[in-house]
């Protein structure tokens, strides 16, 4: 009764072939990730030490640590977040909760999508023109961070808008029906249920901001500085640029040092990504409807 016909056999063979093919493709995809991480850890891990993380470079950057660059990246990210998070969340709330669907909102949405597609080197040039020259911030942490903020604004806006729109419409209608204003509804029902999604977006923004090189090269990051920055109008070193410098610009560089820098940078990004994954899992566990 259940003997395989020739057609059954052919279908079965075909499905095995496809499973193998698709599986191989997937395997190939993981390969670069494993290779990159493996190389970085193998070659970079021996360099990592307390000294490496918390002292400055010495001997023309061929020895010593990366503390100024590490601190600089953290500073750049923090100032960028201070600018982009309030702005992005405000815009997303307006677009999702207030704006009606007309040509103006559609134009804004289009602008946001296009902003996300602008190459980072173009952002860099815009940053030079706008912040360094026009606003006269000079090449400084402020100018570099604002450039980064504008570049990552779409990430915050899109993530926030999506988590706001994931809150069912019925909740809003129930609130409006009992006489709540739009803001009361947002404040009491929509935002508390979207906040984890918004946080996930912000963290992803951090990891993107930390890794960028082009936008900060001309706006505020320096090759080498003997002193730590004193305020946001100073220049700073940054991990991503430091990595570029030590790998290509300095003769006589010990082989392992650039790998150490890269390992620190990628660890920061991975740490942030894991945090965002953990948050999302927490969110799923806490889902309230």
């Amino acid at each position, binding site marked *: 009764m259940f003997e395989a016909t020739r057609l059954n056999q052919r279908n079965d063979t075909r499905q095995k072939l496809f499973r193998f093919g698709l599986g191989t493709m997937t395997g190939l995809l993981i390969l670069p990730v494993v290779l990159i991480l493996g190389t970085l850890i193998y070659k970079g891990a021996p360099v990592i030490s307390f000294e490496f993380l918390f002292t400055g470079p010495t001997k023309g950057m061929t020895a010593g640590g990366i503390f100024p660059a590490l601190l600089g990246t953290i500073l750049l990210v923090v100032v960028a977040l201070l600018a982009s998070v309030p702005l992005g969340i405000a815009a997303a709330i307006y677009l999702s909760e207030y704006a*009606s*669907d007309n040509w103006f909102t559609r134009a804004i949405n289009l602008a946001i999508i296009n902003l996300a597609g602008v190459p980072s080197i173009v952002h860099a040039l815009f940053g030079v023109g706008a912040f360094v020259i026009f606003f006269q911030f000079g090449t400084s942490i402020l100018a570099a961070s604002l450039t980064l903020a504008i570049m990552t604004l779409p990430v915050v806006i899109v993530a926030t808008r999506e988590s706001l729109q994931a809150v069912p419409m*019925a*909740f809003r*209608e*129930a*609130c*409006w*029906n*009992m*006489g*709540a*204003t739009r803001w*009361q509804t947002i404040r*009491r*029902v929509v935002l*508390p*249920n979207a906040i984890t999604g918004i946080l996930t977006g912000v963290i992803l923004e951090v990891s993107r901001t930390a890794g960028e090189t082009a936008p900060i090269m001309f706006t505020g990051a320096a090759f080498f500085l003997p002193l730590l920055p004193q305020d946001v109008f100073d220049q700073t070193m940054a991990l991503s640029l430091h990595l570029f410098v030590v790998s290509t610009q300095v003769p006589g560089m010990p082989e392992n040092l650039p790998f150490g820098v890269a390992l620190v940078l990628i660890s920061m990004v991975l740490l942030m990504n894991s945090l965002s994954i953990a948050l999302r899992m927490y969110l799923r566990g806490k889902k*309230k*409807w």
Partner: protein
Amino acid sequence: MVGAGAVPLTEETVPGQVKLGVRDLRISYNHVTALEDVNFDIHEHEIFGIIGPANAGKTSFLKAINRMDMFTPEMKVEGKITFNSVDVSRIRNVYGLRSRIGVVFPLPVGLPLSIYDNVALSPRLRGQNNRAELDIIVERCLTRAALWDEVKDRLDSLGSMLSGGQQQRLTIARALSQDPEMLMLDEFSIAVDPVTTMRIEDVLKELRKEVTIILVTNLVQQARRLADRTAFFLDGRCVEVGITEDLFTGEVKDQRTRDYVEGRFG
């Protein structure tokens, strides 16, 4: 029954007066008529039933009363609806209007807040933040909605995680926490088991002493059990308004009303 902190819409209303007046109402979406020819008065402390098949315009009618057309740009309301003799289209403070009218939806909407916060939300929106006062309101409303005994030990758990029938009673408690003058129920029993339905119906019979109730229902017999008068909506028109019992005993103007209540279509 004017809620704490709410501004009266008009001078003191007298029981038995017209609570809601509807004249030549026409509702359309993108110029397509959804409901027209609606003319009737709903009196205070009356349970007014609205029956009719899907797409008859029943829900649009409730939305128009509450000025929810504000949130639906393509929805247009013409004609006149008065609440406490005030034309609702002229009310600037729509929040004052909505807070006087409690709404219960077909599918229970337990907000993703604790049971306590669900019921305390409306008083809080009006600025009531005194915990002791809120405790009293929450207990009173949950008791009146016949839910208190089932949830009194877990007021901190999520309202949206209750069973369907419990959530629907929670939404009724929430509507009552508004201290409403009128309650609008839109097919409240769709997602509720028969036993809970009967319990809620008993609650409604009690509530009529204090509030005016509009009961939109897909169950003809439910209208017969509860409503003093009933309107029959069909294909975007109000075909018939009358004493509920008359619709069932054949005192009807329109044959279609009779066919509908006897289950020949719809």
